[in-house]
């Protein structure tokens, strides 16, 4: 819950020189401040900040001239947007049908137990966020886990926990056949 301070309604909420606002401004400009670009703008904000801090949503609402509750409503409707900071590392376990049939939920339980973190939550030290997702479209490799932006296929509870543990303990990620998933390139302005 945001605190009960009316002052956040005032001002435009943009710190004078936070470079992370640049990405948002670029999308705003490219979309010509059209209100229907809200999701695109929120996506840019999520990328820049890793989550959607309240003041960023207020900034976006003001720029697009949308009511606050509208922006908040959209931001909470879509699962991609997070209103809480994410952990330094993110383990995403696919719970699509093929992975489920391959007992991916046991992987979730194992991570959950090993690192004491519930799905959708971040460890108190901010190291690891455990998320589940519905099908990454890699069903041929089920069960699938995405960790450190690598798609890991044909996982088991033990192998996944081992990999996460080795990364969290500072060791280099275990060499697997996996390669980095290509990241979306920033679109030109």
């Amino acid at each position, binding site marked *: 819950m945001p605190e009960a301070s009316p002052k956040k309604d005032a001002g435009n909420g943009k710190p004078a020189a936070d470079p992370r606002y640049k990405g948002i401004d670029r999308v705003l400009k490219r979309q010509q401040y059209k209100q*229907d670009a809200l999701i695109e703008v929120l996506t840019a904000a999520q990328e820049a900040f890793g989550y959607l801090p309240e003041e960023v949503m207020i900034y976006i609402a003001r720029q697009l001239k949308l009511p606050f509750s509208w922006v908040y409503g*959209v931001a909470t*409707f879509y699962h991609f947007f997070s209103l809480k900071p994410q952990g330094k590392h993110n383990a995403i376990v696919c719970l699509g*049908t093929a992975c489920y049939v391959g007992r991916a939920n046991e992987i979730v339980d194992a991570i959950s137990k090993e690192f004491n973190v519930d799905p959708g939550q971040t460890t108190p030290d901010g190291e690891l966020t455990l998320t589940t*997702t*519905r099908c990454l*479209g*890699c069903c041929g*490799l089920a069960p699938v886990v995405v960790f450190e932006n690598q798609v890991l296929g044909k996982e088991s509870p033990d192998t996944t926990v081992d990999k996460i543990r080795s990364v969290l303990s500072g060791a280099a990620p275990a060499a697997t056949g996996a390669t980095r998933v290509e990241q979306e390139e920033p679109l030109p302005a």
Partner: protein
Amino acid sequence: MAQSELDRQKQFRCRMLVCASTPCISSGALAVEEALKKAVEAEGLQTEIETVATGCLGPCSRGPLVTVQYEGQPDVAYEGVTVEIAPFLLAKHAKGLLVPELDNKAIPADWPFFAKQKKLVLAESGTVDPEKLESYVARGGYSALGQTLREMTPEEVCNEMVKSGLRGRGGAGFPTGLKWNMVRKAPGERKYVVANGDEGDPGAYMDRTLMESDPHRVLEGMAIAGFAVGADQGYIYVRGEYPLAAKRLEKAIRQAERKGLLGSRILDSNFNFRIDIRMGAGAFVCGEETALMQSIMGRRGQPVPRPPYPANRGLWGGPTLINNVETFGNITTIITKGATFYAAYGTEKSKGAKIFALAGKVNNTGLIEVTIGITLREIVFDIGGGIRGGRPFKAAQTGGPSGGCIPSEYLVTPIDYETLQRLGSIMGSGGLIVMDDQSCMPDVAKFFMEFCMDESCGKCGPCRGGTVQMHRILGKITNGSATMEDLSKLEELCIMVKETSLCGLGMTAPNPIYSTLRYFRDEYEAHIRDHHCPAGVCQFTEKPLRIAVA
């Protein structure tokens, strides 16, 4: 342009096609490509051998896949290529050496996985470079668009679609030609074309593969649709989980615009058509067309009641044509080869071929395209190579959370829209998950219901509350605390939610329960009465709180 690209390709004696779609990439395809390139350079064969990152080849579980096209030799596809053995490909094909390590990696040409398929939409996906317009054009790309603009009227295009018998590939199977005609005839100043790439069904990834493997085909199909219905703006709505698809589409759009294949005055005609990408942000319900339009307009993706239908009043009040990405993938084939050619495939009421994502407990998983009307047996046992570990086939789940399970007695039924519906499932977007005797049906139903519960938008009461209650009851059945009364409550809820929900999500959410109850009722009863899970999945940790009727 097509000619120059063909000439350029001819310079090479050999092309090495590395499948670079997401599953193969996660199996290490990019490293293999790199290794191949290095090996070619080391041998100084850059001018003779070309390495190309292509779209999807199909058998995803066997990746990384590499196809070698060598002048004067039949094409050979290799599975499970690693960085270590990649250079051997060169040794074998360029130098003619015997490489025993490769022999068991070569996929035989008559492998049923390929032989039983009919690739219409995915025809080029394993050979074109998705990031190069030239590669697509060399294969005859954009000739269909040119042909329409030069030789056809919008009405003729729509009628060609009617004649082809193509039906929407998003799930419901609405006749495409009919829809196009509706939008064409709808009055409105600005019309829109939307490609629905919000493929949310868990276990389905044909749209992603198509967008990643052959993006230009989708764009061309959309442009033809735009011409046919009189729209000048298209949106392609890509699921948020698919960054690679979005990246390749974005690149493809820019390439096409630069060459005058999209944008203003396309191919020097009077036709203008722009395509913009809209990214989804994680909401299954946005696959529903009215919700999808809300999302494109930047709002909460909640469905709105129909009528008015999008064909009359869609985006910003304008008539809007919404088709699935795969539907758009069929358009160019129909235009270039003719509606009659296309209609020759398939069954009486369902024409053409359909892409399925074959997954689950079969030996060969991956993406397949088969003519509609093929039997489940052929898919599972011929293409899929049978059940893993030789276990018995129990059921195939089609249509994802909106679909149902088909038991073994229907293995011989030809698959088309109508039969699937009659069996209590749907074609859906084409996810096909095979289950063996170790899959527990109430547990599977619970899985899908949990999905629907999480994805319910919350607007209408029956879906919002109904999915939660159905999930609870299934939870009780699988933990041992249900009574037979719960089973009848569950059935009642299924029917009510199906009949009264606002949109397709709610209307189809009960399908997985409904169909498993229909074929595997004894399994539900064994759970409730005997606390016995035939598949050995469920742990019965609770007891019913309520005592049975005296």
